[in-house]
């Protein structure tokens, strides 16, 4: 297909010049001049015209490249002809990506046994995968925008920490309790926001997240306030501690103790919890309750006309999402051994929500990929030091331009007669409340 003839060279240069000029004005003060307080308190400054010139040149060149790319790509909505062989290959790759990712995840502790950093990062990524999958029930399936998800994470973490330190209950007893308590809080949040939609719902959930955090900070006698809770027991392998000593797992197995054992155990623990979340969510989607969640996202009025109790449907979505958040919170507490309100700020809610949105609302694989991109990518850019946030933000913006509906931009039907065909997310609604 020949590319349609776009505007000429003069147009491209003019556009690039304008962009460069804007960049020059914007960056002349931000990058061109650097100020700092001198040793005696006076203001000293020095110029960085070299950096400024490089920046403007980059914008100029980038603008030309963008325009050329746009002309090559053609107008919006142009259908690109992809050879069938390539299409088939892509389809296979798409189907293979989930199992390959899963097998790789299982092998991570084996491959990177001696690299503590990678294992810790893996645990962190999996924690966010689990949180993303939990929030996906509320935001992706039921279409209820929740900006206070971290509240349930906090409830789970503090439930385990307080039950374990005060009553000496084990992790495996506390885990379901933390989930149940978080689910109760999910219902408590759900009740007042039943009638709210869209922006209003988002604001109230945001406030809920802050309320929980402020209560934790100020209820010093119970939660220890800003000092947090320390000395939280480490998890045990069903009663066998992963510690040195005669009772420890290593002693019983007759192998030498290594602190890595605990890290590997934690890795598989969070992997199991995340996979449980995934399995339950996939099952629920195929049950009437899951279909009702998605129908609620699509059209609440039609749901009521079909006799669906929208109140209980919304509350179960909140409760289910909160329960998984609670499990993740209990895991977080046992991994850290110390928790404080600082870990449960709005930043965390925003990050988890970004993972869900970036992944493609409702897509399990998308959320996993997005968590890997967001958490892993953020670590990847560590070498860039002060420019890390800038590059990361830019990457996010480009990603959303490239895939406005998230990494996985389609939803899979929950039931089919002959063949399951993916539905483009452009048809699916995002939900208004």
């Amino acid at each position, binding site marked *: 297909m020949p590319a349609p003839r776009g505007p000429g060279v003069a147009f491209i240069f003019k556009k690039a010049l304008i962009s460069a000029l804007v960049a020059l004005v914007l960056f002349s003060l931000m990058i061109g001049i650097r100020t700092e307080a001198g040793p005696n308190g006076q203001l000293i400054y020095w110029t960085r015209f070299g950096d400024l010139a490089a920046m403007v040149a980059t914008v100029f060149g980038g603008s030309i490249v963008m325009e050329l790319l746009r002309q090559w790509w053609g107008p919006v909505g142009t259908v690109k002809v992809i050879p069938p062989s390539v299409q088939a290959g892509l389809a296979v790759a798409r189907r293979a990506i989930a199992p390959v990712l899963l097998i790789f995840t299982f092998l991570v502790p084996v491959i990177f046994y001696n690299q503590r950093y990678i294992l810790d990062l893996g645990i962190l990524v999996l924690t966010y995968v689990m949180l993303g999958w939990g929030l996906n029930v509320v935001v992706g399936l039921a279409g209820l925008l929740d900006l206070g998800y971290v509240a349930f994470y906090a409830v789970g973490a503090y439930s385990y920490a307080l039950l374990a330190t005060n009553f000496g209950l084990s992790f495996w007893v506390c885990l379901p309790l933390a989930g149940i308590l978080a689910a109760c809080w999910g219902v408590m949040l759900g009740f007042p926001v039943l009638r709210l939609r869209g922006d209003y719902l988002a604001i109230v959930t945001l406030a809920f997240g802050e309320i929980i955090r402020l209560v934790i900070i100020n209820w010093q006698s119970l939660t220890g306030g800003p000092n947090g809770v320390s000395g939280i027991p480490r998890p045990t392998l069903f009663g066998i501690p992963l510690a040195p000593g005669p009772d420890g797992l290593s002693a019983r197995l007759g192998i030498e103790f290594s602190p890595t054992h605990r890290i590997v155990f934690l890795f598989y623990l969070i992997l199991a919890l995340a996979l449980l979340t995934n399995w339950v969510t996939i*099952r629920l989607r195929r049950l*009437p309750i899951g279909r*009702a969640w998605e129908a609620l996202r699509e059209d609440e009025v039609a749901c*009521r*006309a079909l006799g669906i109790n929208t109140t209980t449907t919304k509350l179960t979505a909140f409760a289910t999402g909160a329960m998984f958040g609670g499990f993740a919170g209990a895991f977080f507490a046992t991994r850290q051994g110390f928790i404080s309100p600082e870990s449960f700020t709005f930043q965390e809610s925003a990050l988890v929500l970004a993972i869900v949105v970036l992944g493609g609302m409702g897509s399990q694989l998308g959320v996993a990929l997005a968590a890997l991109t967001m958490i892993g990518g953020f670590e990847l850019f560590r070498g860039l030091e002060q420019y890390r946030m800038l590059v990361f933000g830019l990457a996010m913006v480009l990603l959303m331009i490239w895939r406005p509906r998230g990494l996985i931009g389609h939803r899979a039907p929950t039931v*089919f*007669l002959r063949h399951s065909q993916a539905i483009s997310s452009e048809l699916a609604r995002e939900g208004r409340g």
Partner: protein
Amino acid sequence: MSSDSILAVDHLSMRFGGIVAVNDLSFAAERGKITALIGPNGAGKTTVFNCITGFYRRTSGTMRLTHEDGRAIQLERLNDFRISKQARVARTFQNIRLFPGMTALENLMVAQHNALMRASGLTLIGLIGAPSWRAAEKRAIDRATLWLDRIGLSDRADDAAGNLPYGDQRRLEIARAMCTEPALLCLDEPAAGLNARESAGLSELLLSIRADHGTSILLIEHDMSVVMEISDHVVVMDYGVKIAEGTPQQVRDDPRVIAAYLGADEQEAIAVMEGGT
């Protein structure tokens, strides 16, 4: 009022602030019959529908739904989803309200929500995949397939509802309402936007629903060919009040109806009025 009416609307009024949308309206819909509610734009037909199906809370009056076993339900005492769940009144919307991002089959599965919820033991039995749940799910799929066949959409079962042509969406919405197994089916302008051939197909579908399921139908419609062809009883509204009712033939010849309806064609209306009095 007939003793075998499925729905008896009695002195129904609906006010929005100072505006009286429906004023002291009484009519009955007979069991197993098709009752049409017609009237010019703004006559208050959809408001009546919204009162019956619980989307509005009526200002005054009663709406009694009598099931075949003699059980009577006062609709004004139920709200939103309970009208569909307990009174088994289903409805469609003037502007189609399907779930566009779900497949045609999924749309029909969502309609069977309450039956499936019971079968899945409020999710718990379903979560472990018990055989009783799987059988119930299979029955639900069979029912949905049956309805897809009836509306001629079985080969598009796995397509997104939002991708279907307009006429198919209209029929799918009716099928979805029928999947709730209603005693009374309320259709809000089902023929709107359909061409003549599609309208004829719709008439056939509605007649077959009445014949095969004994479902009573209450219908708002502007397309007079559909109304005259399939209705057993017609209620005419204008400015929130009932101005006439009777068989299609009676209504068609009623001078008040002609005056209200053919407002554009005043000369003829006046001529009919003068001829009548």
